[in-house]
């Protein structure tokens, strides 16, 4: 249906056959490796969150020699730990009409038809196995009185398919895969290397053959070789400076891989989460997410009157605008994230926002408390209420939450084929770090699902295909390529230390974030993006003249780590703007003001833009080259995404 031509550099390697049989058939046709041969293959996994941890553990269980790296002191601190709400699975335990196909359909539709069908179907297919696996590992999911697993509903779906563990599903799932990882560390299957940050990847004869890391404790730069490298290094929301990501979350691993030839897909697809605690002042270091599950029982509203400064409880019912219920009667407060976020922005742009600076809307539990009782509300959301109270000093049992959207997740990431391999042979990318499954917008409770699907089930099956081509173990870091990359890495760090300006790297990061939030955030325009491109470039130049990075290279130096990450964000911001500018349509989280329906909804252009954009690096200051992967929809009908 699409007029878009596939770039010759992209081969998605989607297996033939009906969608429901692709994955089964693929696995059957996949080359098998004998157990004694698996020992001869060494895989480096970078990152130890849900995707990396589960991949490292499973690969080691299968017999591969695995080395897993993380920059934290412990794999358990990876940012997956912070996910609150839940994980989707097409179990249909509630008998409410759920199925693999429905989860697949919801995900494709939720992503506004910008994801690859075959990948999404596979994701929906393995979703059930994830729940089984986690329950068997001892992940303490919330349960009903009969002892069976409990479910809740989540944004963008009309069935209850979300499994959860109170308000800390991410931590419990992560502890599950951390436990599996620990078991492999104990048995020698995984060598865990903590407090090491990947600073570049190394290729030998066109294949990814290793990485260069910095030991964050001693500053030592070292090389590590393997048959394959897996990046599970998360997303880049921190490009906005203020986001719900952890302070350490960064783009360095994926950006460095991009510089070495891995294509970066859909960088402008960044999700803005609708329910975060608004910023309090310019010293704000990060934003805190309140689980979207709050929208199950809370009602979102703003005053009807502009500039209404009355206390929320003093505003009568008739003078409140429950705008999500008004605009999207069938989904109401459970409208997908991009839609809910934009609606909040609209209300605030209309000067009807509440709280400091008018950047906030109310999320009100008054009706839920009246309907269910305070105890029932506390049982469901108590920890979120407490957290809000700790941060703001306000009591949400009595006064509504104030919420505002914040950057939260990046659907964009390194381009991967059906095997989850990037355009660099031997370099695999899993979890949030890749772009594969969520299209232009991710549904709630699907990130945990994707991370674990990739790590537990998909990558361990697909990587065998690649490894089967090897004769033996790769562990040699002597090739000259390693020395060259090491020199590169050292040179860059030394350059950072030698700038000798007088501004902290954080101050540049803040400026970058402000530019991107204003021009490449919830809504974008051609003029704004062009302006941002100039500003980011200018900022990058100033950074390399004015930054001051204290300390030395050969010591534990958090300021150096931060500066190095900011330097990459300063490039990443530009790449996002290029992509957002090129994608001259609105879809999902990417909202170009030029392309909207009369009532302000995103207007897709399937004729010209039904493809994934895979950007190819051409130089630090050059405009990257666009490669297109057309998206074929054989099983779902391209439709206007409506939640009305």
């Amino acid at each position, binding site marked *: 249906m699409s007029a878009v031509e596939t770039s010759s550099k992209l081969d998605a390697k989607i297996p033939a056959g009906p969608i429901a049989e692709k994955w089964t058939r693929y696995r059957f046709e996949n080359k098998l490796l004998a157990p004694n041969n698996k020992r001869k293959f060494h895989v480096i996994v970078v990152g130890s969150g849900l995707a990396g941890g589960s991949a490292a553990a499973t690969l080691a*269980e299968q017999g591969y020699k695995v080395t897993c790296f993380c920059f*934290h*002191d*412990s*794999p*358990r*601190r990876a*940012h997956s*730990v*912070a996910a609150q709400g839940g994980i989707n699975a097409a*179990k249909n*335990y509630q008998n409410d009409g759920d199925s693999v196909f429905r989860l697949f359909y919801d995900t494709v539709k939720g992503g506004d038809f910008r994801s690859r069908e075959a990948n999404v179907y596979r994701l929906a297919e393995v979703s059930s196995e994830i729940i*089984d*696996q*986690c*329950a*068997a*590992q001892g992940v*303490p999911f*919330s*349960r009903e009185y*009969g*002892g*069976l*697993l409990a479910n809740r509903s989540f944004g963008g779906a009309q069935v209850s398919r979300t499994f959860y*563990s109170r308000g*800390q599903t*991410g*931590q*419990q799932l992560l*502890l599950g895969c*951390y*436990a*599996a990882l*620990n078991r492999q560390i104990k048995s020698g299957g995984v060598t865990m290397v903590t407090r090491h940050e990947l600073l570049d990847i190394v290729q030998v004869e066109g294949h990814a053959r290793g990485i260069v890391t910095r030991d964050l*404790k001693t500053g030592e730069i070292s090389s590590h070789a393997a048959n394959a490298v897996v990046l599970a290094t998360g997303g880049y929301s921190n490009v906005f400076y203020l986001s719900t990501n*952890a*302070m*350490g979350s960064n783009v360095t691993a994926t950006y460095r891989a991009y510089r070495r030839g891995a294509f970066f897909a859909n960088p402008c697809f960044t999700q803005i989460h609708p329910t975060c605690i608004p910023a*309090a*002042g310019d*010293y*704000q*270091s*990060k934003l805190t*997410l309140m689980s979207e599950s709050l929208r199950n029982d809370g009602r979102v509203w703003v005053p009807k009157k502009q500039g209404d400064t009355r206390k929320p409880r003093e505003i009568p019912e008739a003078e409140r605008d429950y705008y999500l219920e008004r605009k999207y009667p069938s989904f109401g407060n459970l409208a997908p994230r991009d839609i809910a976020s934009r609606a909040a922005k609209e209300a605030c742009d209309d000067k009807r926002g509440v709280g400091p600076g008018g950047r906030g809307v109310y999320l009100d539990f008054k009706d839920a408390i009246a309907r269910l009782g305070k105890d029932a509300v506390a049982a469901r959301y108590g920890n979120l209420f407490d*957290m809000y109270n*700790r*941060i703001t000093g306000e009591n949400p049992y009595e006064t509504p939450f104030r919420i505002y959207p914040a950057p939260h997740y990046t659907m964009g990431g390194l381009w991967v084929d059906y095997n989850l391999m990037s355009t660099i042979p031997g370099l695999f990318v899993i979890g949030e770090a890749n772009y594969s499954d969520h299209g232009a917008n991710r549904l709630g409770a699907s990130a945990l699902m994707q991370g674990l699907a990739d790590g*537990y089930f998909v990558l361990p099956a697909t990587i065998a295909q690649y490894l089967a081509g090897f004769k033996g173990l790769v562990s040699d870091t002597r090739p000259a390529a390693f020395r060259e990359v090491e020199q590169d890495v050292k040179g860059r760090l030394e350059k950072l230390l030698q700038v000798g300006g007088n*501004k*902290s790297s*954080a101050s540049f990061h803040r400026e970058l974030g402000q530019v991107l939030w204003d021009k490449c955030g919830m809504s974008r325009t051609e003029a704004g993006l062009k302006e941002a491109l100039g500003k980011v470039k200018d900022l990058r130049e100033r950074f390399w003249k004015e930054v*001051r990075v*204290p300390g030395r290279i050969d*010591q*534990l*130096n*958090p*300021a150096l780590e931060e500066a190095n990450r900011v330097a990459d964000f300063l490039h990443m911001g530009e790449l996002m703007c290029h992509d957002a500018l090129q994608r001259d349509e609105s879809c999902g989280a990417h909202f170009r003001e030029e392309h909207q329906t009369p009532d302000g909804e995103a207007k897709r252009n399937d004729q010209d833009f039904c493809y994934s954009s895979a950007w190819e690096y051409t130089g630090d200051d050059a405009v990257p080259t666009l490669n297109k992967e057309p998206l074929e929809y054989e099983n779902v009908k391209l439709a206007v995404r409506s939640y009305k």
Partner: protein
Amino acid sequence: MDLTLNVWRQERADAPGKIVSYDVPGVDEEMSFLEMIDVLNERLIEKGEEPIAFEHDCREGICGSCSMVINGVPHGPQPETTTCQLYMRHFKDGDTIFVEPFRAKAFPVLRDLIVDRSAFDRIQQAGGYISINTGNAPDANATPVNKEASEAAIDAAQCIGCGACVASCKNASAMLFVAAKVSHLSLLPQGQPERYQRVLNMVSTMDDEGFGACTNQSECEAVCPKGISVSYISRMNRDYLRASVSTPV
């Protein structure tokens, strides 16, 4: 508000450290404790001094990275609150605040306020898991779990591995941490096959790492950001005793 911070500064693991005093004027009460240190650090960088190294990441109380002792109390004065979620509204103008790293032989200082907590990882590697390979799991609802036991397991599993229990204990004991980890798994049916070997192995590693013994003072519970109950320690002692005396035959 204007504050004085007395902060432990130590350049390297093997270098001597000392308390250094900093004036921090103009602190906003809506700042978090860490944001207050961010502000101080930016000022230090602009002045050409070394910023204070401290561990932090998620800043929403779940990753367990914060490792500061504030006026003698890990994570500071607010109950069930990590340092990153401690807000300056709980301090007042003119306060002098001591900020020190978690202190324990098993948690050596790496730099300033950063300590090495890898001992916790090693304890969990000794048995904090259920041995099941990916792909072997039965249907999740094939094993119902008693609701009360499940809730108690979640209570224990809420542990964020920060180590405040160790930092607060006069014996630098890790009993609350280990008890939470052991109990989370031993409360669930899935954890039964390895229940007794697990507790023996984890306690043995805990001892080898150089943590102290439990005096049952419950300071750990009082500072635990997740409010994990010391009753889990008693539960672990019970498991340990049973593991020591019982045999399958």
